[in-house]
């Protein structure tokens, strides 16, 4: 029974988010369009998880104790209403037809077909293994139990959001505030753990972590759907989704759930995918969706605000490719120069020293990227794709993504060159975990850059036309 209620509870944000995106989408865009359904399923979970936690925050503010009925019933009603609205706008029968088309295997034959099914089975096996870990292992990683699940436990037991404060405030308080190692951490992820516990009916710090598994599945679906929407073939999109699903460090963050890095990577990647969609369509709906997912990043982890900034260069070059490119290059150059100045000086502002030590840990950095098992072959692939498509990276449609990737790498390099810069952020991660935030976007870049190279190469080296075909073409022209 517990597993039934838990399953239903875990499906609630999924249903809510998919319904919300269905109702908000442009009805003129066919549901059967490539990647549309998978995008809705992937991005839908992330949207629904956010909406669920917004509702829980509202309940807590209103003084309503958390409970299955108080949380689920209104959200189910909203999801139902949104689905009816979407059904009316989009045509129900068409939706069912689109679902059938979306889940039909691609029109490939022979080895490609076997590869398609093999890769799908491989991804399914990966998520099955991760599911075993999530279902079995009690909360394991350190930061999870000193700064995240601490809140979930208190909020679950008291049925509301209570205040968490630093040590000084805690000593001064009269017992109405709680303490943990990271009191400023956003409430979103602990609230998802609270909801899983409520659905289960009791505290269980293994099973409450299912949202991490769901986020990984949702990210994989969203990457597949997002790449398809951006023009990738079904095989290319599946390979991209597989790359994202198989990143070892991302897998570790699912199996040992409890950190905010993978969820942040998922929201950032979906924000970038939605933004790239907007860069193509320029519709207000796509812009709003991209903005919503981008705005969610700081609600997952404080450092998400920095990734939000990484989107700005992309927006700039999308709006004005030529001038924007110069502007972004100048801005990054100015920041780099400022960092060099800070490394060479010892300014003190309001008692805070602004000096940064240049202390890159080259060996561990290069080991992590190229020798260890963190990323499979991600970094080799990113470098290769950038080399193959460097010219296309400087022009639309790849330019906005290239600008985001360049800015992301620039931000990570600040952490690498100046480890002391981490003190400027409350929850700055190490370089490896910062790279995890960017990794799904790098996969998207890798796939799209390779596509751009493919297009250029094919245009430059057209296939020789067979004599029969040539005469047929000539006859047609005649």
């Amino acid at each position, binding site marked *: 029974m517990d597993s039934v209620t838990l399953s239903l509870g875990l499906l609630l944000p999924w249903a809510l988010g998919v319904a919300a995106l269905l109702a908000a989408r442009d009805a003129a865009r066919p549901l059967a369009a490539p990647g549309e359904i998978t995008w809705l399923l992937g991005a839908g979970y992330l949207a629904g998880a956010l909406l669920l936690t917004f509702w829980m925050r509202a309940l807590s503010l209103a003084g309503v104790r958390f409970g299955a009925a108080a949380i689920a019933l209104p959200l189910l009603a909203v999801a139902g209403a949104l689905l009816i609205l979407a059904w009316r706008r989009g045509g129900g029968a068409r939706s069912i037809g689109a679902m059938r088309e979306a889940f039909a295997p691609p029109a490939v034959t022979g080895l490609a077909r076997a590869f398609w099914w093999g890769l799908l089975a491989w991804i399914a096996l990966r998520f099955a*293994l991760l599911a*075993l870990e999530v279902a079995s292992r009690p909360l394991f990683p350190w930061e999870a139990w000193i700064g995240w699940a601490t809140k979930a436990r208190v909020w679950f037991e008291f049925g509301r959001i209570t205040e968490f404060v630093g040590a000084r405030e805690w000593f001064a308080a009269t017992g109405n505030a709680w303490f943990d190692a990271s009191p400023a951490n956003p409430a979103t992820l602990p609230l998802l753990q609270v909801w899983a516990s409520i659905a289960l009916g009791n505290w269980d710090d293994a099973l409450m972590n299912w949202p991490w598994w769901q986020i990984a599945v949702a990210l994989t679906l969203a990457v597949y759907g997002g790449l398809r929407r951006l023009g990738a073939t079904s095989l290319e999109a599946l390979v991209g989704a597989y*790359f994202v699903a198989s990143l070892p460090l991302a897998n570790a963050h699912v199996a040992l759930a409890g950190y905010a890095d993978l969820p942040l990577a998922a929201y950032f990647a979906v924000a970038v995918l939605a933004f790239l969609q907007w860069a193509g369509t320029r519709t207000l709906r796509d812009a709003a969706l991209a903005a919503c997912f981008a705005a969610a990043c700081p609600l997952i982890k404080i450092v998400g605000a920095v990734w939000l900034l990484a989107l700005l260069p992309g927006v700039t070059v999308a709006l004005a490719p030529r001038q924007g490119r110069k502007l972004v290059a100048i801005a990054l150059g100015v920041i780099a120069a400022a960092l060099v100045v800070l490394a060479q000086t010892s300014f003190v502002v309001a008692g805070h020293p602004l000096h940064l030590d240049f202390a890159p840990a080259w060996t561990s950095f290069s080991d992590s990227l190229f020798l*260890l*098992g963190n990323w*499979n072959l991600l970094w080799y692939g990113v470098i290769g794709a950038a080399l193959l498509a460097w010219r296309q990276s400087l022009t639309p449609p790849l330019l906005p993504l290239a600008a985001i990737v360049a800015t992301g790498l620039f931000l990570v390099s600040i952490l690498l060159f100046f480890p002391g810069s981490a003190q400027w952020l409350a929850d700055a991660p190490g370089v490896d975990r910062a790279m995890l935030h960017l990794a799904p976007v790098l996969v998207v870049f890798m796939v799209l850059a390779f596509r751009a190279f493919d297009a250029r190469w094919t245009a430059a*080296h057209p296939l020789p036309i067979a004599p029969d075909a040539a005469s047929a073409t000539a006859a047609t022209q005649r």
Partner: protein
Amino acid sequence: MSPATIGLASFGGALLLLLLGYVVLTAPGAWFPAASPQSWGPRDASLTRGSGAIDGDVLMIDAAEPGSTAVLSIKADIRSTDYRAIAWRLANVPEQADVRMFWRSDYAPAKMNSVPVTVAAGHLLPVDVSREATWIGRITGLALAIRTTGAQPVQFLGVTAKPRGALELLHDRAGEWLAFESWTGVSMNTITGGAAVQDLPLPFLLAAAAALAMLAALLLLRRFSPIASLPLALGAIFVAAWIVADLRWEWNLARQAIATRDQYGGKDWQGKHLAAEDGKLFAFIENVRAKLPPAPARIFVVAEAHYFRDRAAYHLYPHNVHFEPYRDMLPPSAALRAGDYLVVYLRRGIQYDAKAQRLRFPDGSTLAAEVQLAEAGGALFAIR
């Protein structure tokens, strides 16, 4: 032949070629030697300096004062010409430790020969003795001296004398790639990808093979197939290389899933915690919880090790817990007031005078308190 097939064949060929090149560069002698590897375990070793004890299949060498040296020796009887490398299997070796390998031979029995040993990621890299002038005759004894700078015990798991033939080299590399890497405290930051120390990391080998295969595919396609299909061949090569790397990772994940199921399968959440690494602590905290009033009681947790301090605090929520997350510091005794609780776990320096019912802190301050629970290593006090 399709471009994808050309790409995959090129990748397979490049991989074999690189492995062959590796063997050519690293096999110091005969590729197919007659001698087989010879190993000695912890029970074959004696600690001639320092102290330690065998725990299961591991010799735990006690942490010593900084600068002191532990010496581990083994009686051997091997022909130097048959064995070209000595692989010491140790764990927890401090990065700054000064480690040297010694040997004695029947050629000059009175002479003790030595070479430095490199420490990497807490382990020792194999010692290549093939170019050592004094590695001659029959080797009658091997020893390892570890001048420690850390305070953690070093684990000795065994030592193997290796002929370093071609197959053995490849077997060793495969063993490193497929070594089980279980979840640890650093898994959130780093996945090593097999053994902690690897002579030929798999991602690098695969990337090199992919690059070579791409060059080969370019040449082959120019000759046998339309060059327009080059991107397909390149894509196939890269995806194949990724899948090989991922096969290794999936295999590791599968073994980890089985280990996790064996440890936690079929247990409720409390049973899982009792079966976890901190099971003893969890059991103690459960006893503490039984003595506490309904949440939220104000509780201070102190322990020397931050793992125990932080973990004990976590198990005490939803009570209103205070702990020092990163440093072993006691709360100021003035901050504790009547009605608060103090949990002490594996923490020296706090004394309790049962007769006077007072807690004494290291700074000399005292506080009226009552023992609610006292177990080996841990106690709960109610502040009065």
